[in-house]
């Protein structure tokens, strides 16, 4: 019985652990933010939050839809599939309201973009190297 509960617990925890481990959120090294909630990150990437608390413009940057890290990020942060997020942006684009964040084709280019843009926030694959000039932000629930 106890073993069954333990296995059930492991099974239920596994997908969440995989999602958490699938991506890492990064900002410019000058950004003082250390932690953000998933909801705050979601609002940033849906362009519902426009400025950091410092007053600087927020510039989110995405990976391509085919990237596994994007799938993990969309599920964990937005609670939506990549397709559902795309549908949201189609609604925004074709009602003239907004366009999706800038998209960069690789982890390296996301890192380079964030390093070059003080207000930027991006995410990369969990195992991707983080070079000088960017900082990892912890996502709390």
């Amino acid at each position: 019985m106890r073993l069954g509960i333990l296995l059930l617990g492991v099974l239920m925890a596994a997908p969440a652990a995989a999602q958490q481990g699938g991506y890492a959120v990064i900002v410019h090294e000058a950004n003082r933010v250390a932690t953000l909630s998933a909801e705050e990150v979601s609002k940033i990437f849906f362009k519902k939050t426009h400025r950091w608390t410092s007053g600087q413009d927020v510039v989110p940057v995405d990976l391509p839809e085919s990237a596994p890290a994007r799938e993990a990020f969309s599920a964990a942060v937005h609670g939506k599939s990549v397709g559902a997020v795309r549908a949201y942006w189609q609604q925004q684009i074709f009602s003239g309201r907004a366009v999706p964040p800038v998209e960069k084709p690789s982890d390296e280019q996301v890192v380079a973009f964030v390093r070059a843009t003080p207000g930027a926030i991006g995410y990369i694959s969990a195992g991707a190297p983080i070079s000088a000039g960017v900082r990892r932000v912890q996502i709390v629930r």
Partner: protein
Amino acid sequence: MRNVIRTGLLLVTLALATPAAAQETKLQVHGYLTQAYGAAHGGTFLGIPEGGTADYRTAALQLRYTMTPSDQFVWQFSHRRLGTSPITVGEPELKVDWLFYSRQMGNLDLRVGRLPIPAGIYNEVRDVGVLLPLYRAPYDFYLEGAFTSETVDGISAGYHLFADAPWNVELSVYGGRFDMTNRDTQYDTTGTPVAYFPDVVNVDNALGTQLWLNTPVDGVRAGFGASRLDAQSGSFEGKWTELHGSLDARTRWVTLQGEYRRFAIPDVNYTAGYVYAGVHTTPKLTLHGQMEFSDVQLTDTPGNPVFDFDRTKTFGASYGFRADLVVKAEYHMTNGHWSDAPLSPIGVAPAKVNYFLVSFSTSF
């Protein structure tokens, strides 16, 4: 039209010449296309004849120049074909749909130029096939091609109240002028209707508002809107007022929508509404059912008689290969006075015309 294009070119040139801000400067191009084939039984409806037509499509190309994260310039061209519809006679192959400057200031969004009118669930996206459950937004309510406009030449402001709260409000107001194409009826000397024709009416002093109440349940919201305008010519010259209400619930498995509106225009009250249900049997396959109605009350006639203007039932299915590639098949059973043929203005027996449409929609 030439002036609008010339002004647009000038504004784009100015925008491109603006020194790059600290943020990434970018010109983005987006577009959509929906191509359909339709055929009708018992007459012609919205340009769909009994012999069928593939001359039925909507398309648009949108250019968006982001000067700074808060400043954008948007230019959209559109193209529409509605088969044999008399409403589109004289309509240009390509028209400037939107041409506006937008400035975001926190939760406030200001726009100036030719801009989409926020009204109901679908007015701003009524031609975007990948966003519509069926080929077009419900006809009785949205009145494609007659008595409405998707855009206004003027100014709009949108504000997101209590943006961080579970219950929050999106409020939009707009004002300006536009041209509206009404469907008018030509009669012979004996008073018999012989044809419909488009009547382009200049509209001034248009004012309107749209309010959305977002609930804590993701995808569930309620809307309310109102507008007024002065039609400067045509059969319905004078002041128009309009009210509408909307319920919109989109969940993983089902989408439920309902809208109701009431126009008070010179000599006529027009009320319309619909209910729609979509069942997402799989993430890609959706089954659709919709019922629409519209009534007309003649306020200049003794007794103010009310007519059932239209009753339409629709069912269909759509398959989304991706969010940007959707195919649809739908069947509409209409009974009323909207058919192109037989001619059935008020006072003539309603016409029963059924039609089907198969279409594919894509966007980028």
